[in-house]
């Protein structure tokens, strides 16, 4: 057969999700030819940046065999705290510095998760559920609960920066913001860690079997700790981008999105038992969720049915492989 295709190509979640996306785009273009334009693509891309970065982090945690529901709280915390800090101390600070501080705050909060999970061995869902409340409660109680629209000017500069912008012949406006570069950077960095470093391979190994990882001498504690710190850092980055692009530091935003992000990652083929998950799949999952959230109306489904659609996609995307695995297990006896 075709050698360049992986053996399990036709049964992979990635293929399934890509198929659904293509089918959706074909349908959408048929019902509204304006759908398939660079404007739509740039709109969808912009909507994918923050979710995409968060999803990459969520994927890493799933690969390591855990689950994290606190990353949205970390993102908001890091964004809001760094904004408040710079408004108070140095409103004219350059945006890269504000970003770095947000990332550092995110890492620190991630390290708290990591401490309880890696060093104390507590279940990941429970810990991150607890820290979700803690981070959010701390932020709103001690740092602030007001929306801030007067951001440091450099953050607004960042949101104005575009890689490309223009108007198509048909008169449609499009733009690709700087923030898209951040997503690309995160993807490349994470790809490098996962594929090219022993640390990344150790994350997969731990997800495959913690016990085996210990036996062959992988430092499970520190690897897990790294995962949560890294996820915290990504959340810090996603948060500050969200604040900058939205031109508003809103301490109530993002939280509540965590399950949708995890859903996108799972749609892309990551498994809750750990050890499985790819960047391609994750990005496809994000793309699908973002398309459904933004363009459902184009194929004639009212936006009020958006939630139902995403729910059904999750059930199909996880149900088909689960059912297949169940049947295979029954056949094997």
């Amino acid at each position, binding site marked *: 057969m075709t050698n360049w295709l992986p053996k399990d190509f036709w049964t992979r979640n990635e293929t399934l999700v890509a198929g659904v996306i293509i089918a959706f785009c074909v349908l959408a273009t048929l019902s509204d030819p304006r759908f398939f334009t660079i404007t739509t693509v740039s709109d969808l891309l912009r909507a994918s940046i923050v979710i995409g970065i968060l999803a990459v982090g969520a994927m890493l945690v799933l690969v390591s065999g855990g689950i994290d529901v606190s990353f949205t709280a970390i993102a908001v915390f890091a964004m809001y705290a760094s904004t408040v800090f710079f408004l108070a101390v140095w409103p004219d600070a350059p945006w890269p510095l504000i970003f770095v501080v947000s990332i550092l705050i995110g890492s620190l909060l991630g390290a708290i998760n990591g401490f309880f999970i890696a060093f104390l061995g507590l279940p990941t869902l429970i810990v991150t559920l607890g820290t979700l409340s803690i981070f959010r409660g701390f932020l709103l109680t001690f740092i602030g609960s007001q929306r801030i629209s007067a951001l440091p000017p450099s953050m607004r500069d960042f949101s104005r920066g575009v890689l490309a912008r223009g108007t198509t012949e048909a008169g449609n406006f499009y733009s690709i913001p700087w923030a898209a570069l951040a997503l690309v950077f995160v993807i490349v960095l994470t790809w490098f860690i996962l594929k*090219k*470093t022993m640390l990344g391979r150790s994350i997969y190994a731990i997800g*495959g079997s913690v016990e085996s990882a210990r036996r062959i001498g992988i430092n499970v504690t520190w690897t897990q700790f790294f995962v949560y710190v890294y996820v915290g850092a990504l959340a810090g980055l996603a948060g500050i981008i969200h604040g900058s692009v939205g031109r508003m530091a809103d301490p109530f935003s993002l939280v509540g999105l965590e399950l949708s992000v995890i859903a996108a990652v799972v749609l892309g083929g990551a498994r809750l038992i750990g*050890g499985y998950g790819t960047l391609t799949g994750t990005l496809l999952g994000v793309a699908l969720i973002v398309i459904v959230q933004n363009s459902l109306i184009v194929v004639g489904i009212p936006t009020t049915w958006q939630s139902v659609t995403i729910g059904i996609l999750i059930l199909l995307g996880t149900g088909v492989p689960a059912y297949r695995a169940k049947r295979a297990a029954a056949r094997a*006896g």
Partner: protein
Amino acid sequence: MSSERDTAFVDLRAITKRYAGVTALDSVDFTVQPGEAVCLAGENGSGKSTLIKIISGVEPATEGTIRIAGQERRTLNPRISAAAGVMVIFQDFSLFPNLSVAENIAFATQLSTHERFYKAHATKEIARKALERIGVEIDLDTRVESLPVAQKQLVAICRALASQAQLIIMDEPTTALTEKEVRRLQGIIRMLKEEGVAVIFVSHKLAEVLEVSEKVVVLRNGKKVAEGPASEFDTKSLTYHMTGRDVPEVPPSDIMPGAETLLQVRGLSKAGAFEDIDFDLKTGEVLGITGLLGSGRTSVAKALFGLVSPDAGSISIDGKTIPTGDPQAASEARIGYVPEDRLTEGLFLNQSIVRNVAVGRLDAHANGGWLNMSALVDEAAEWLKRLKVKAPDIEAPVQSLSGGNQQRVALARWLSRAPRVLILNGPSVGVDVGSKADIHDIVRDLASKGIGVIVISDDLPELLATCHRILVMRDGRIIDALDGKTVSEDDLAHRLAS
């Protein structure tokens, strides 16, 4: 003697290990020469796994000295031990199902050389060399989860070789292998020995590894009770040393099975597992089903209890056909199944002893869904007493019991349902010798009450001591039906292996 110690790769002297007052090892001396294969034999709890844990650095010894590769090791941990060339292949192989063959083989090596970056090319090179060394070809890119058991074991061996193993410790290496695969393993072991790699087999079934070994060491209750050249041991003498007594030749049961046919199995088949299984079971009959692992004996047993759905064939009790592939229907028809693996399949370890029995009788004591608790508990307690389960407190979790008592709890659950057919898969695996004899008595007693018993086992003396008839399976088919009274152990062993 001293020169032997000078050359030894591993040299343990007067090793004692105590856990909270329990002496697991009592002043044991143990040496392994380079290129030597040693059988470490002993029953469960004899101290053999403790000894392995000490050599591999998982547990520190309480007293004694350890020399590995000529150096005295005062502090030992898994990393130091591995760096010295000691590699353990656990029974579950400790592989990563989600990673490729190449990565599984190379991972430990790359960790030990403190690689920071992962290079796919170098990884494959390490794996290819290791596979070449034992003359085996496995696709390097395949995920380990899709390999058959024997190939997983080869991957584990290659991983040890890639890490410059000087001593490979194999825990129960042959349990999951077919005859052919055991032969190949033996060939590989011979090759490794020629290259100077030492091997320790940890096992309680040694016939298969005895012929490639130089030395046998037998532990019992934490003490070394026998040591000598492998040629001086056979299965019988090993059993004697392991158990501390000659296992009495139990006369085959003199109770005759009844005349009525209880269970009829006709043409039972499942692709890839078993084919065309036909047999009858009479009331009061004990029927043995034996075969090597992978012969299909466990699949057949599971199919009888509805845990495996056959593609074709029928099962009937008293002439009435029961639906296949449905454990509830089988249990309703009063078929009982005591699984092989008590710890994961048979018992609810952290639940109380009494609950583990009572779970079989919930419906009988439920009135419109509500349980009559006292009747349920009293009945379970009664069965525990009848099977002589030694438990200080029946509300204690079942994991606090010894193997033999645990097996009795599993039996009690099914006996309380008054089964007509009871399937016992490996009834005495991991049970001490005393309890083993008791369990055999229980089996004979059940038969005398008219219950049809099916014993699935590869413990030949056990089959001969309990069974009226023995079916031998190979490659999913019944190849022999033997009379349990007239067949000899050697004959049976021969038919099993041929």
